[in-house]
């Protein structure tokens, strides 16, 4: 525990010395990076020690604020969230050296690193807090620091808008949590977190709904995902990685903690969560497919993956309400593993996307093309991340989705139709998987393959800097490790699920997870096959003539601009989801035998934010201004009238 706390403090203070360093020097950022690395190492060490000891590590100190108590609790459930956090936070610090160097960003570099460290530390505190007040405290600090990361480039209007919307949603969610924990304190009589499965009845329903709202906002559960795409797009890439990889997960963590308190789980909870998961998954990936801003697209994929995780949680909740420990175990371990996996491969994707953006200076996918030649490292890393996020073997994404599938299939064996129907999660997952493949083939192909579509892409001359490459490769290895040796994580998953709900201690994960090594083995074989065949093909085609151009199907002068773009690639598929996406298309109609030049543009705004909330709030604000102009009309007599009326009303009320 001491290691953990020390590491947390190191991370928190990592940005402070830099504040006093030279605006253009490298010392500050190097020192900060070093501190973060040391901190993450210490934290990871502390976690591993705590895990080895078996029992959850506790730390309790008095705190003199009303109801406060510095209570930390480090159990396997938290550990499962903390370990990827260490990797991503540490990696991000190194990545920043190359991606956001102080000399290129003298204005905001120091501020960025300060809040980066604070964010990391506050998340650690969120994941280990054992007291409502402390939790809220860390939660809000996390929200605010993340806000400052999003608005790093606050001179850009886009970043300001993103920051504002993020801040508002974060605060709204936090207020819901205020209510949640106040009611919880009323139930348990103290602000200390209750023990697992200790709450029965009471205002459970209200607590659950408040939690779903408050934590759902953070997790980016549809339709509460509004802040996510813009914020991820606006932040610097390693901040986006941290946001999408870890910050979202704190929402999931909160939901898990909350549900672990209750003794009995009514089935409709599981169904609600499951349904939300399916909606987030399908529409998240559909929206992603329709985007052509690289980072916005990745952000929507975060919504999708949160959906997958939530599907797992929903199944696990159903397993609990129907008393099927095996189902609970499979679903929850799948969900937890996907939490880890998404943290890893999404960060990998954001890092490599950042390297592309850094090189081309644009986030528009349709401006890329043929980058694989100049950026082989980035391309390989992105490819690996893409394969992983599509849930394809041999990478880690498949393993977690596989577990959730098994759980869904398991549900079909249960008695009672209201449980069996949960099996429908499986086709939904399949649809999500298929769409994800389509989307990432699109991104990878349009970005790295073919011919450059713009001058910016054609003049790219550098791959990711070594300091950016290192973290990317580390994450790549982590993904491959989980994908190829999944069995190694089984014990941790088992104990984590056991901390969430006790009965699964009886069942052991070994039986359901037995095939994992085989899955890994298949991955190995696949790799070997591909390598062998590829090597053979390479030898056979080594002396093939390479100076020919692509066969243009008889068209004489093909140009790069004629290549399929991201939009056109996705169009056929997106048109299937038109009912939910409302893609906007402008122009593009050609007529006549010799049509003149025509413009065509299509973009898909966020269904919830841009179609519902923004107009709604605009009219609300207009109404408020109107009312204000009437009430606050500047005339003293009117004001005195208010006083008189108040006096009369109160007198009448009391006289009655």
């Amino acid at each position, binding site marked *: 525990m001491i290691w953990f706390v020390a590491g947390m403090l190191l991370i928190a203070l990592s940005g402070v010395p830099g504040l006093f360093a030279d605006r253009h020097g490298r010392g500050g950022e190097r020192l900060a990076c070093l501190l973060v690395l040391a901190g993450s190492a210490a934290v990871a060490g502390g976690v591993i020690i705590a895990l080895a000891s078996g029992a959850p590590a506790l730390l309790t100190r008095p705190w003199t604020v009303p109801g406060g108590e510095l209570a930390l609790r480090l159990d396997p459930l938290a550990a499962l969230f903390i370990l990827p956090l260490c990797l991503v936070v540490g990696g991000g610090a190194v990545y920043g050296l190359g991606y956001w160097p102080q000399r290129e960003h003298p204005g905001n570099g120091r501020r960025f690193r300060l809040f980066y460290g604070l964010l990391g530390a506050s998340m650690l505190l969120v994941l280990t807090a054992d007291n409502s007040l402390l939790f809220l405290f860390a939660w809000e600090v996390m929200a605010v620091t993340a806000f400052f990361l999003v608005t790093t480039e606050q001179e850009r209007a886009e970043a300001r808008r993103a920051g504002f919307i993020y801040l508002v949603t974060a605060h709204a969610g936090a207020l819901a949590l*205020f209510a949640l924990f106040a009611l919880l304190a009323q139930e348990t009589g103290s602000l200390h977190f209750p023990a697992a499965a200790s709450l029965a009845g009471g205002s459970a329903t209200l607590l659950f709904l408040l939690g779903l709202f408050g934590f759902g906002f953070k997790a980016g559960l549809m339709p509460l995902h509004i802040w996510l795409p813009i914020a991820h797009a606006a932040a610097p890439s390693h901040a986006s990685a941290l946001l999408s990889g870890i910050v979202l997960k704190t929402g999931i963590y909160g939901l898990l903690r909350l549900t672990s308190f209750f003794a009995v789980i009514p089935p409709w909870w599981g169904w609600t969560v499951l349904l939300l998961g399916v909606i987030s998954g399908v529409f998240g990936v559909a929206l992603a497919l329709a985007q052509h801003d690289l980072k916005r697209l990745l952000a929507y994929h975060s919504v999708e993956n949160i959906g997958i995780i939530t599907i797992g949680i929903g199944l696990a909740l159903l397993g609990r309400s129907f008393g099927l420990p095996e189902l609970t175990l499979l679903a929850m371990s799948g969900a937890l593993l996907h939490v880890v996996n998404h943290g890893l491969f999404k960060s990998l994707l954001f890092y490599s996307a950042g390297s592309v953006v850094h090189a081309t200076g644009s986030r528009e996918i349709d401006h890329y093309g043929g980058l694989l030649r100049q950026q082989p490292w980035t391309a390989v890393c992105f490819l690996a991340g893409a394969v992983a996020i599509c849930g394809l073997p041999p990478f880690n994404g498949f393993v977690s989705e596989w577990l959730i599938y098994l759980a869904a299939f398991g549900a079909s064996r249960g008695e009672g139709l209201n449980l069996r129907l949960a099996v429908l999660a499986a086709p939904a997952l399949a649809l999500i998987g298929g769409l994800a493949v389509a989307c990432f083939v699109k991104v990878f192909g349009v970005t790295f393959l073919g011919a450059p579509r713009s001058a910016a892409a054609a003049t790219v001359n550098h791959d990711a800097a070594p300091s950016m490459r290192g973290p990317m490769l580390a994450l790549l290895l982590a993904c491959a490790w989980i994908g190829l040796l999944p069995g190694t994580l089984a014990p941790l998953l088992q104990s984590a699920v056991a901390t969430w709900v006790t009965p699964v201690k009886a069942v052991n994960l070994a039986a359901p997870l037995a095939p994992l090594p085989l899955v890994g083995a298949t991955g190995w074989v696949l790799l070997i096959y591909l390598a062998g065949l590829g090597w053979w093909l390479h030898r056979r085609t080594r002396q093939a003539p390479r100076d020919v151009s692509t066969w243009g199907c008889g068209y004489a002068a093909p140009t790069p601009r004629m290549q399929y773009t991201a939009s056109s690639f996705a169009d056929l598929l997106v048109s299937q989801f038109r009912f939910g996406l409302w893609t906007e298309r402008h122009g593009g109609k050609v007529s006549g035998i010799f049509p003149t030049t025509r413009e065509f543009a299509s973009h898909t705004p966020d269904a919830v934010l841009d179609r519902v909330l923004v107009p709604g709030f605009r009219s609300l604000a207009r109404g408020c201004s109107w009312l204000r102009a009437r009430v606050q009309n500047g005339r003293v007599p009117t004001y005195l009238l*208010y006083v008189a009326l108040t006096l009369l009303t109160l007198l009448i009320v009391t006289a009655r």
Partner: protein
Amino acid sequence: MLAALILLPLLLVPVAWLIPWYRVRSWLLPVAGASHLLLVVLALGGVPDAAPGEWIGLDPLSRLVLLVASPLYLGCALYAVDYLEMRRERGNRTMVPCLLLFLSALSMAAMSRHLGLMWLALETTTLASAPLIYFNRNRLSIEATWKYLLICSVGIALAMLGLLFFAYAALRGGVPVSLLLSDLLAAGPVLSRPWLHAGFVLLLVGFGTKMGLAPLHAWKPDAYGEAPGLVGALLAGGLTSLAFLAVLRTLQVMNAAGALGMARPLLLGLGLLSLLLAALFMMRQGDFKRMLAYSSIEHMGLLAVGVGIGGLATFGALLHMINNSLAKGCLFLSAGNIHRAFASKRLADVRGALVALPFSGALFLTAFLAVTGTPPFGIFLSEFTILRGIFGAGRLWVGLAVLVLLATVFIGMGASVLAVSQGEPTERDMAFTDRFLLVAPPLLLLLAVLFLGLYIPESLRLLLEQAQALVEGGA
């Protein structure tokens, strides 16, 4: 020593009037403030609680208010030095004496154990602050002053009538008539109910006007909007706390008479109304100083709600009074700096304060976060405590309503504050930059709020609990 708290600034008034040296006159303010703070600290430690029958004395409530008001005043006084230095054209021959008089009246209002005396002191604060609002000497400021004066005078007159009703309640109850707090509390049970209730309503409306509870708030946006930043800070941080103290005093009497059950719903209603009004009126507020006024209304509403619920919520409300005053001080002072630098307080003209005035801009933004209840600042604790009180009292819907309104407030206020602080700065008065004395006081106030968010000294907790017991003990 208590007398000194009142007399010292009072004696300095003529001095300030007479001495010819501009800068020295400005420096009288910090001197008075510092010595006042020193005396307060000594008094808090040394002077025992007031015995029955004393007209001037301390009790936990007055200790709390002094504890808030004195540091805030010192901060504003320090700020005033450089501020007046920059506004030499305005002169400080009215400003300084009025501020000193304000301090004296403030101390008296906080310490008087006699409702009549307290009422008198409050009236004096109103009169002393009127010329301060008029500092800028233009049409708008005169208008603001007029409104402030008229509405507050009406309010204070109603409060007077309320006091007379209390007295008559005692007369009717057959006990010797006296407005001494101790006597009223002792006579509590026999006070005649109709008179008591009517009197409470009058006092609530009267002091509520001063406190700025909706719909009695109408003077606030104008006065806060037109007054210089430091005056706004004193009004929003000090005067409102005094008015709140006055309301608490009446509550004490009601409590002694066992009529809290009648008093609380009224407070709760006014509080919720204030929250609602503030929430709606902050939406797309184009003037950031008026926005601060609405924020002050919002927090007065929170105080009223807290007291209206009672129990833990009252404890939270008392804590909130401290945090709110300090945070408001920082907010108004930094806002004043931004106002000066951009020579405007319209959102349309003010952009990129973070770049233009690194310190003031950052302070403004941080103070906004603090005042909207973001950790690690104290307001987070007090708001959460109030909420716990509300939910603990089983008032589920009140709690949820308060939360929704707080969220709305955050949206409205956030939009304006971020618009002011972020972005590329618009053209501005380059002569004005962050000076030490213009930045240090708000910073110190903010640090105080931060401190209260991280650690609440045992003694302060005890004080708060005693104060709470005083308001509603035994009820």
